[in-house]
């Protein structure tokens, strides 16, 4: 890209903690946030999950929201993440009318809907939660808590939603529609998708082991993360510094199956290749790949093939951070982008927890804590529907 886009703020909440500092600590300490179900009221307690360690009422208190305000877990997590991002970028409420907001979610307010569904049907009240069920309402609640944004858009492309929000925001800046766009996503765990993923038989009853020969599936997670994308011109004018640079991105369709990935990783390969081309970089410029790496039998084969096709014998260090947070679905693209930026800023490779046995024909991930100066990193997020995205992030003070 001739005019790289800067990232001038970030905010995050996930199973490993609230905020960048807690996230960095967990990554460096190799400490996972995946464990037994605590907050979601379900019978399926056999699945390890990456829950955010805050109840809804704790989050309300932190955000100063009284009990009678109608809101949902996805929105609450989104607000916590957005608060941190806006603060870092120095964006106060009066500046928001010049700022866009693009957020990805799939379940929206489903947590409340499944809690109150029978009450609705039996006429027992809680009808006000119907209005906040949908994806768009979720984005609005998150945005409205801080002020009036220039526009609010909601992306819903499953597990690539947040990554695609990053791409959409970047495109809007590139074509002059905006100078600053907040991008990312939020998603809470619900019984709906816990049961759904279970019906596809891709959940593991043990902590997940991406790229390991014994992997049996993914662990679900929840969380939110937002990045502030800003044109270099605007950042200069406002006197804010860049946390990192968005150098490139790509989105391609695997066009193979509704939920499974192609054996040769076609969509993933194309998405990563496009990200490199946009950034005008070569494969050997990439110092680390944060893989989608869900730990399912299918994804890890497909993604390994895609990486080998693109990088040949020189696949850079790869890890999946999903053993830390679980698979945070719609939020994963932005949560993992924040992890990538922390890695760029602090010079280390996030490890692929729980790995011990190489899979046949798979990549060998980073399994030991490693310090490394990183210049450019790729961050992958693949959604059902074959919607494959890859984001290329670079260190902010490269010559």
């Amino acid at each position, binding site marked *: 890209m001739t005019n790289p886009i800067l990232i001038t703020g970030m905010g995050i909440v996930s199973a490993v903690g609230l905020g960048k500092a807690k996230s960095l600590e967990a990554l460096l300490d190799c400490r996972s946030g995946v464990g037994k179900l605590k907050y979601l009221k379900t019978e399926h307690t056999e699945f390890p999950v990456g829950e955010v360690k805050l109840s809804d009422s704790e989050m309300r208190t932190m955000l100063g929201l009284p009990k009678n305000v109608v809101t949902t877990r996805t929105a609450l997590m989104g607000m916590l993440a957005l608060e941190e991002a806006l603060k870092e970028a120095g964006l106060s409420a009066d500046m928001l009318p010049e700022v866009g907001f693009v957020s990805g979610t799939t379940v929206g307010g489903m947590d409340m809907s499944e809690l109150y569904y029978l009450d609705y049907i039996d006429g027992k009240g809680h009808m006000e939660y119907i209005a906040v069920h949908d994806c768009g309402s979720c984005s609005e609640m998150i945005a409205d808590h801080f002020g009036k944004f220039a526009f609010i858009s909601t992306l819903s492309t499953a597990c690539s939603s947040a990554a695609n929000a990053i791409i959409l925001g970047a495109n809007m800046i590139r074509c002059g529609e905006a100078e600053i766009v907040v991008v990312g996503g939020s998603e809470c765990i619900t019984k709906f998708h816990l049961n759904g993923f279970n*019906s596809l038989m891709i959940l593991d009853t043990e902590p997940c082991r991406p790229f390991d020969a014994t992997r049996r599936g993914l662990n679900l997670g929840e969380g939110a993360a937002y990045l502030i994308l800003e044109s270099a011109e605007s950042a200069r004018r406002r006197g804010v510094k860049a946390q990192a640079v968005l150098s490139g991105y790509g989105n391609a369709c695997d066009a193979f199956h509704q939920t*499974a990935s192609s054996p040769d990783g076609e969509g993933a390969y194309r998405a990563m290749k496009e990200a490199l081309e946009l950034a005008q970089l070569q494969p050997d410029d990439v110092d680390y790949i944060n893989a989608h790496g869900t730990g399912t039998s299918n994804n890890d084969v497909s993604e390994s093939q895609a990486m080998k096709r693109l990088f040949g014998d020189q696949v850079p260090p790869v890890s999946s951070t999903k053993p830390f947070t679980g698979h945070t679905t719609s939020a994963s693209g932005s949560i993992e982008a924040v992890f990538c930026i922390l890695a760029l800023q602090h010079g280390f490779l996030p490890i692929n927890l729980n790995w011990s046995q190489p899979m046949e024909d798979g990549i060998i991930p980073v399994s030991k804590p490693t310090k490394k100066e990183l210049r450019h990193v790729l961050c992958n997020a693949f959604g059902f529907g074959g919607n494959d995205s890859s984001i290329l992030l670079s260190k902010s003070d490269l010559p």
Partner: protein
Amino acid sequence: MNFKSLNHTTMEELIYRLKQEIIEALNLEDMKPEDIDENAPLFGEGLGLDSIDALELIVLMEKNYGIKLQDPSKGKEIFKSVTVMAEYIQKNRTK
């Protein structure tokens, strides 16, 4: 015909019923039980079923016959054909 009696279902009756259930569960529009060859492969050629269909067949076995299959990879052997599936069901059904 009433297929509810566990003890009196012959293999023929079970195969016919299973074909009806498969057609319904997998949305095989325009197909009648007579159109399905009970010895032909269900996957690959023939009906061209995919991995999601295999999962639906696992749900069908639990729902209609009380058989819980924990390991999806066993599906390959059990769903070789309608006949093989019916034999497995007859042996393991709890409903």
